């Protein structure tokens, strides 16, 4: 490889480091504003999230849905389709999966699980596919459609767990426990780490191969860069947009189903708060590279779990953590813009 390319990679890695550093500094400022010691805060944060077995297990638990949904966002963004609707797709996937196993009780274990996960994928895929089709057929902005779809899905969930799918006792906004056969078991005893971790890692590999080595992934990359070049190359660009949104929604839907099957074992209100937006940050921080997504998801898991510890032990309000997350997201977007400029300058 020539020097120029390596040089650019190096500069990009440096810029990434700067983003993280800037996030830390800014977060430290806010911690100080709140009257606490930033160093102690970071020590508690990392000490619990990375230094204790239980803490790290919780990081992994949090990272699993972020990884799956982040992969979905990466697929859509690679196609230059801005799927902001992972939240909605997660919810619809979970609802459809839960409804399916409740509607057909008595399925044998493995089959029930397969149906559960397949319905999760299908729910998210259909919901995302709608936005993809509207964009491909009528040129409707997928950003607006998916944002609106999020509201619909979340309100729909709120109604479902208070109405048709509410538990028999009628106490809480949640469903009854779902049949055990359809649920994912624990992968590491003594923690909450479930087999969803294996699914997320398998999905990472599959998406990596699909995006980097398959004909479909190549077409996604071409359409994402320039639809006119895609038409020139004989690619049905609209079809690729719809397929990319199906895949993207499907992965988000799988994230929703896995979160229910592995963690909550029942449908409940607000079971994946803000995961869809976090998934965008996860995908951007991973530079839309599938293999980097699990690591990016882990980082956000560390942030979440560590800040929980900080809240308990230092008494720091939670919003400070959100500020840190927001700074990282801004940084990633800025980095993307810088990168686009250097690429254009090189061309």
């Amino acid at each position, binding site marked *: *490889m*020539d*020097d*120029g*390319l390596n040089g650019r990679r190096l500069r990009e890695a440096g810029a990434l480091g700067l983003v993280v550093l800037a996030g830390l500094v800014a977060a430290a400022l806010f911690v100080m504003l709140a009257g606490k010691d930033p160093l102690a805060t970071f020590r508690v944060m990392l000490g619990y999230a990375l230094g204790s077995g239980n803490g790290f297990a919780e990081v992994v638990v949090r990272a699993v849905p972020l990884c799956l949904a982040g992969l979905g966002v990466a697929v859509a963004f690679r196609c230059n389709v801005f799927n902001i609707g992972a939240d909605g797709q997660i919810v619809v996937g979970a609802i459809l999966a839960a409804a399916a196993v409740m509607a057909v009780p008595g399925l044998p274990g493995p089959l029930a699980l397969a149906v559960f996960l397949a319905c999760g994928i299908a729910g998210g895929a259909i919901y995302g596919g709608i936005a993809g089709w509207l964009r491909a057929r009528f040129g409707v902005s997928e950003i607006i459609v998916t944002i609106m779809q999020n509201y619909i899905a979340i309100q729909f969930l709120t109604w479902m767990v208070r109405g048709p799918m509410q538990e028999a006792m009628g106490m809480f906004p949640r469903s009854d426990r779902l049949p055990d056969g359809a649920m994912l078991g624990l992968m590491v005893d003594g923690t909450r780490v479930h087999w969803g971790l294996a699914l997320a890692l398998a999905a990472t590999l599959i998406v990596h*191969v699909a995006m980097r*080595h*398959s*004909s*479909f992934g*190549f*077409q996604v990359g*071409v359409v994402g*860069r*320039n639809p*006119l*070049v895609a*038409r*020139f*190359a*004989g*690619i*049905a660009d609209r079809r690729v947009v719809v397929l990319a949104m199906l895949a993207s929604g499907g992965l988000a839907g799988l994230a929703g189903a896995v979160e229910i099957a592995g963690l909550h074992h029942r449908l409940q209100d607000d079971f994946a708060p803000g995961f869809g937006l976090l998934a965008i940050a996860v995908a951007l921080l991973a530079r839309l590279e599938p293999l980097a997504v699990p690591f990016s998801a882990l980082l956000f898991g560390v942030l979440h779990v560590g800040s929980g510890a900080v809240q308990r032990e230092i008494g720091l309000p939670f919003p400070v953590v959100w500020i840190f997350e927001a700074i990282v997201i801004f940084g990633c977007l800025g980095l993307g813009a810088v990168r686009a400029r250097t*690429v254009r300058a*090189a*061309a």
Partner: protein
Amino acid sequence: MAPLLELRAITKRYPGVLANDDVGLTVDAGEVVAVLGENGAGKSTVMNIIAGLVRPDAGDILIGGRTVRPRSPRDAAAMGIGMVHQHFKLVPTMTVAENIVLGDYRAGRWLLRPGRNAARIEALLAELGLNADPATPVGDLDLGARQKVEIAKALFRDAGILILDEPTAILSRRECDQLYDIIRRLAARGVAVLLISHKLDDIFAVCDRVYVMRQGRVVGERTVAGTPRDDLVRLVVGGALELPERDGAQSAPGQALIRLRDVTLRRPGAPPALRDVTFDLHAGEVLAVAGVEGNGQAELVEALAGMLPPASGRIDHDFAGQARRPTAAALRRAGLGHVPGDRHGMAMLGDMDLRDNVMLTHFHMPGFARFGLLRRGTAAALADKVIDRFEVRTPHAATAIGRLSGGNQQKLVVGREMNHATRVLLAAHPTRGLDLRTIAFMQRQLLDHRNRGGAVLLVSSDLAEIWRVADRVMVASSGRLHGPVRIADTTIEEVGAWMTA
């Protein structure tokens, strides 16, 4: 008296390339001087050094005998140097007047106030013969008019030295003549004009003196008057240049490969670009489409390539068998190659490497994918073959194609398309922006393809090129396609008259 602009022993080294080696030149006030050379000869580096975009490793720039070191385009502008780049640096959504004052603090440091300078702007536009309202968005102007805005921008900053980088590359014949006029008038009022070009026509039309560059060095300086064309060509290419010649004896037009009957073409939402087109493209011929650009040639090529379905009439791709609605992919598999006029916008992806750009039109071909997975090795081998056969100068097959010079990008695109163009090659302006040697090479490729029994549809606005390689010619003008007629049965004058009819 010292010359207005002088370069002394300018040297600039990039990793692996000596872009400028001991370059010296002078330009006097009121003089038009050309820097002539092939793509990659180092012309643009010289200009970028003068314009403050690139710093030389060694050597001096003198203005009026005083050494200067422009460190930025703004610096250079303050020294009276104005540069018009080949790719315009205008903001399409801003008006003509706003673009002219943009970046010039005298027009207001914080707010653009084109109104303050309205009289001056109008005078400049009038001098340049641009009949556009200064309040028109630049995006609504054609390329020739945008270039005048660029020149106006430089003159607004009182540029005494005007550098034009390949100014005629994108202009029509008529626009070229207008530009030559403007250059002569500017020189007459004392502006020093430095013109970078690889087109001999530019040199003979408007220049007083010419420096010829090859491989980073100035290899010759000539006074244009009295210098024979051949002399310059030899200097540019470093030897004699053999132009390919069509050999009538080898032309044996065979069966029709594509047939058009009463075809009308229009893009969605636009008026028809071409009406009632009827012709056959035969095996073993080069069929040229002459005409001023923008008369439906782009639509015609896209329709033949399966990208634009006809609004009415029928196109039979006989070479592709009985496919009812042939797609771009199906036609490529059946033996079609397509070199579009808009190389950057359509034929390549600048940030992808050469191998993936080869894969671009091959991924649906047998051998390039199996079970839905790409076989990158096949594309890499083909990329190496194209790089070798078409002499693409690149550091590596894994280099992003956007980093290559325009000529080398074009060679890769043509080489790639010719790989699957076993039957039909659609080539729109395949030699535009290329240097003489590469033009000769490309034209030879077209003729070889024809002599192997392939069909070539050549879109060109260069009649000399058409006369050199085509068997028949059609003319696109005002929404119609005239002809085709055999080249042997017509004259350049006749075709030229149709073009402007």
